[in-house]
């Protein structure tokens, strides 16, 4: 936060958010709205049957009580990013909005890195870089979970 003080040290104006904070907020605002819009559109396509789902709507209830490992096996669904090759199916199309909402934070971090470096704020630039790597690792699908 930036602010001004008078001669006696008293703050004389409302503090303003830093440039980094404003940039992050603007990107987040745009991404959140785009993601939610995508979610609404793709879900409408799904429930109105504009694209055929991989699992027919009247059979979804047969799968939602299964754990993920059983679900993947019985519904013939592949984990990771395999959904990107099945966007012609109404149910998988919903992943576009979901993935966008889950990915927008990574995009928000990217402009922070040069901004911190420009201010020679190396520690925060490093924090931002490592955070991008952590989130990218989570999103990559490289991490595998054992079955239960």
């Amino acid at each position, binding site marked *: 936060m930036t602010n001004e003080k008078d001669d006696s040290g008293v703050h004389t104006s409302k503090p303003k958010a830093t440039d980094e904070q404003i940039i992050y907020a603007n990107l987040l605002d745009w991404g959140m709205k785009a993601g939610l819009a995508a979610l609404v559109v793709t879900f409408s396509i799904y429930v109105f049957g504009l694209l055929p789902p991989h699992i027919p709507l009247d059979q979804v209830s047969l799968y939602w009580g299964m754990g993920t490992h059983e679900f993947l096996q019985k519904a013939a669904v592949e984990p990771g990013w395999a959904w990107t090759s099945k966007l012609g199916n109404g149910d998988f199309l919903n992943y576009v909005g*979901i993935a966008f909402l889950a990915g927008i934070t990574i995009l928000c971090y990217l402009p922070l890195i040069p901004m911190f470096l420009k201010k020679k704020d190396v520690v925060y630039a490093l924090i931002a870089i490592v955070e991008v790597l952590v989130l990218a690792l989570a999103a990559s699908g490289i991490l595998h979970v054992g079955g239960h």
Partner: protein
Amino acid sequence: MSVRGRWLLFCALLAIGALVGETAWATEAVASKAVVSEAAAVAVPEAAGMPWWAWPVILFVVTFGLGIVAVLGGVGGGVLFVPIVGGFFPFHLDFVRSAGLLVALSGALAAGPALLKKGMADLRLALPVALIASSAAIVGAMIGLALPTNVIQISLGVTILGIVVIMLKAKKSEYPDVKEADALSSALRISGIYYEPTINRNVDWKIHHTATGLFLFIGIGIMAGMFGLGAGWANVPVLNLLMGAPLKLSVATSKFLLSITDTSAAWVYINQGAVLAMIVVPSIIGIMLGSMVGVRLLAVTKAAVVRKVVIIMLLFAGARALAKGFGI
């Protein structure tokens, strides 16, 4: 048509679409992939007398109500969503937890921009905390998906009952007295000023016990990923009572933090295939619409009464999770 009117229209469409979908796709089932049909034959039987589309519609109505109650009770949506939907709906806990994370994430994404622009959430405070919590949340999500469901149910029940204790016992400090910033927060330059409209002046703040606070966020991140709860219930006490950040700043920074912590955990669930659009989307839309209504009701509702309702709901849901975990 107003924005609110458009949202209401979409909700009606959701319900109608579900009804239409059931009819339209009943015939498609025959033509669906053999492997899917084969799986359906051995899958769990449908709840007696309940058409498949009833559950998503009920889910939408319930999450709409949860959205209202969450705002009025001052809690995040995720902490109510997971135990209640996990306890009383026929969905597997894997799908419920991923939906819980996405619900909490959506709420945080929606609130984040305004909180950052107003300076209520602080980026310098949030970034180091978020790095630790989001890394831990990945571990938590992996543990959660690897452990047997009954173990998760029991742990969830214990956690929810623990949250009730925190809600009953934890004090709040509007402006904690931080005599001196510690070395770590000074080195990271974590301090600031924000405008407090209720007293019409700027509030200077700094923090202490930074190392201990950061360490605690490892545990908070693990629990957030493991149970899909969001973690505002734990973030705020640590930021406010331990680290000494003003209450409003702690609440706002906590809300913003969820957008990062829950992102990492949500990806683990997404990549493991623990996402069903039929559960996730009605939940997100329902809780966001409910939150909008809740904000409007805030001025005319007694917060203390709603908070008691939330505590009773959590007690009930925590007990239910424990009972399910023990197979009762």
